[in-house]
Structure formats: C-alpha cells, structure tokens
C-alpha cells in the first residue's frame, strides 16, 4: 500500500487545519491537536471516500493518533 501514510497524513491535516509536516504521528488528536468528535467523523468519512471502503462506527474510538488512524485504515484497504 504505497503512499497510504502520506495520503492519510494530508487528508487529516486538511480536516484539522494543520500543516501535514507539523503532525506528530503519535500525538493525541484530542489532547494535543485540538480535534473534536465531528472532525474525527470527518476523518473517518474522508478515508472511506478516498479508498471506497466502509469502516464501522466502532472503529471511530480508535482514531486517536495519526498512526492509529493509518493502522485502522489499513485493516480495511485491500
């Protein structure tokens, strides 16, 4: 899956309005990056749209860092 990390970093950066290079991949979305629950839902929906996949709601709670988000996405991207 080449480029997934970078694509998701860019997609997350756009939604949370940060420079892609400023996001520490292990920084906590909520505590460190000011992400709220609606932004998390937008991230989930944007990943679904980009990769034409469906990620169940239960996974939303796991989107806590960029690395975690990438890991969740990779579970569903074929």
């Amino acid at each position: 899956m080449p480029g997934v990390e970078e694509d998701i970093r860019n997609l997350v950066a756009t939604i949370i309005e940060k420079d892609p290079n400023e996001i520490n991949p292990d920084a906590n979305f909520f505590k460190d990056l000011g992400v709220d629950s609606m932004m998390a839902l937008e991230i989930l929906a944007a990943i679904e749209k980009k990769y034409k996949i469906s990620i169940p709601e239960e996974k939303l709670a796991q989107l806590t860092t960029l690395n975690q988000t990438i890991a969740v996405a990779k579970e569903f991207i074929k």
Partner: protein
Amino acid sequence: MLNIEEIQNILPQRYPFLMIDRILELEEGKKVVAVKNVSINEDFFGGHFPGNPVMPGALIIEAMAQASIALFYSADKAVSDNKKLYLLGTVKVRFLNPVFPGDQLKITIEPVKIISTGAIVNALAEVNSKEVARGELSFSVK
C-alpha cells in the same frame, strides 16, 4: 409522505424556526426529500431586503439541516427524537440562484456517513428543478 404534525414529532424546531413544511420522500437512512414553501409573509423578508425580498442563504442551510435531522431519525429511530440537541459542525454550501417569495424549495438529503452521535450529509436545494444551493453539512447529536 410526512405531514407537518408528523414532522414535528421528529424535529425539535418550532415556529418561527421550522423550515420544513412537508416531507415528500423518506427512504430510511438513505434519502429525504422535503419541501419548504416560501411565502412573502415570512418575517425575515421585512429586513432581507426592504423592497427586495430574497430568502437568506443561512435559512436555506437551516432548511437543509432540518431535513437532515429527518434523515438521521429515519436511519435509527432508537437514537433520535425531538428532544435531542442537534448541533451543526461544518457547512460547505454553494449558493447558485436566489430564492424569492412564492418559490417552493425542494430539499434532497443523502448521507455521506451516519453514526449514532452524528452525521455528514450531501444536501441539494432546488426550485422548479433548478439548483439554488448545494453542499455538505455535518452535525452532532446530543
């Protein structure tokens, strides 16, 4: 079809802020088509604008948001009722044509993603099959 009584069982909004008069189609969690009849008697036309009545774009968004609540409700009635608090998260809407007194606003809402605590939807508003606004809304439910 849902009449105004049935709509008020779903939506928490009331006069003078109920922006949906009728729901023509309600496909559970998939699609809502709603109607807002725009009358010269609307209070806001007195100020928007004097002698030149145009429906405020912000209220077209409100009509879209209210139709979206009906979609959310239809997706999972268990987590939605007219006592819930619905809060818009983001609004990305483009306005294409003005809406005047006498127009019938037809609003179509389709989901991008619905979860138990919120939703992202695509919204389209038309008058006589002509697009007047379209975009994307997200909202949370408490």
